[in-house]
């Protein structure tokens, strides 16, 4: 089983509400702070993007459902800070902390531009891919992290156990299933796999419609 975040294909969510074009303004002032705080704290390098995604995913389902987007970010950030020993529960409860010297890896304003422009590339050297474009593969069933019960994985439940066609090969990328849990980068070939919408949903809205997913080699077997 996966977790509450894995909602692709779910029924009952109502309409999508479009917004004006252009740069997206923050709806609330605290949204600005939540984004800046999350990225600035992320700049400490104390966790990976996979760990931060998993911190949001492992919120209690009732919290995940009722929290707005940036509330999820803030809750996950607080949980990560405590898990990494950077902040204590007592400090969260008090809403304040004693002054301390700057952390050795404090993300400084002068580093922000270069660091954002550099990002964190996830491509790695690794063995040649086992599959080639056009191969038919089948995904793991059920969708799960095979190393950590309840752990992070990027195979959505709606695509588990399905046969699809390799359409792109991206080289090897860091494996989220291990990297989210401090178990190493374990890079594997990454593929884009196309699935027929009719196979995923029982019937497609129109013939020829497809859904593609980016999937690591260990999620796949030859079909």
């Amino acid at each position: 089983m996966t977790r509450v975040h894995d909602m692709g294909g779910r029924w009952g969510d109502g309409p999508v509400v479009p917004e004006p074009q252009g740069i997206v303004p923050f709806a609330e002032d605290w949204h600005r702070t939540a984004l800046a705080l999350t990225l600035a704290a992320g700049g400490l390098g104390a966790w990976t993007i996979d760990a931060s995604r998993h911190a949001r995913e492992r919120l209690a389902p009732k919290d995940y459902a009722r929290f707005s987007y940036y509330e999820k970010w803030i809750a996950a950030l607080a949980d990560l800070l405590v898990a990494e020993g950077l902040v204590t529960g007592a400090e969260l409860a008090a809403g304040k902390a004693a002054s301390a010297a700057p952390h050795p890896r404090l993300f400084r304003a002068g580093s922000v531009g270069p660091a954002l422009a550099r990002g964190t590339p996830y491509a790695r050297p690794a063995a040649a891919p086992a599959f080639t474009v056009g191969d038919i593969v089948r995904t793991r069933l059920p969708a799960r992290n095979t190393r950590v019960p309840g752990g992070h994985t990027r195979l959505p439940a709606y695509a588990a156990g399905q046969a699809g066609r390799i359409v792109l090969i991206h080289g090897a990328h860091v494996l989220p299933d291990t990297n989210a849990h401090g178990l190493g980068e374990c890079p594997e070939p990454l593929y884009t796999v196309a699935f027929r919408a009719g196979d995923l949903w029982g019937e497609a809205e129109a013939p020829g419609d497809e859904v593609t997913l980016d999937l690591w080699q260990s999620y796949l077997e030859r079909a």
Partner: protein
Amino acid sequence: MPHDHADHDHPHSLLPSDPALRVKALETILVAKGLVEPAAMGAILDTYERRVGPHLGAAVVARAWSDPAFRAQLLEDATAAVAALGISGRQGEHVVAVENTPEVHNMVVCTLCSCYPWPLLGIPPAWYKSDAYRARAVREPRRVLAEFGVTLPDGQAVRVWDSTAEVRYLVIPMRPEGTGGMDEAALAALVTRDSMIGTGLPERPR
């Protein structure tokens, strides 16, 4: 076997319940402890409120419409092609450009979270991050498109790209008719954010 953190262990619940107060409390703690520099927060916001947004992706699309060699490079290796225009970085480390044709309309979603090509489009709109879009875009993309006022012609298939890895997808919409004499700047003005996600089409020239 390694264990996940205990599922009942949620320190965030110690923070105040009001979201604005929670964020303020966390900011106060992190700044006091030397874990976050306020000036760095300012620089991050300046980046995404003023510098990085869909105007950058629109320039890429307009260049692809105008320059066949650039279009070929973009479809071959979009990461390198956009880097040559000074576009790179966080949440856009690995870019793939997917081109709409009369046969295929491309549309991008992240059902598991909110993956989005930040260096090209900026911060995602709320609808992109909404449960409704994440849940429905893969199962009923044409109904979702209708909510954006888009109806595809018969015979044009939909390919929905669920962004499950660190690859970020940029949709290259079809160049509108009647734009033959327009320069790149004029073309870029027609390229909406939603047309590069695949939930919209470019504007028509006036």
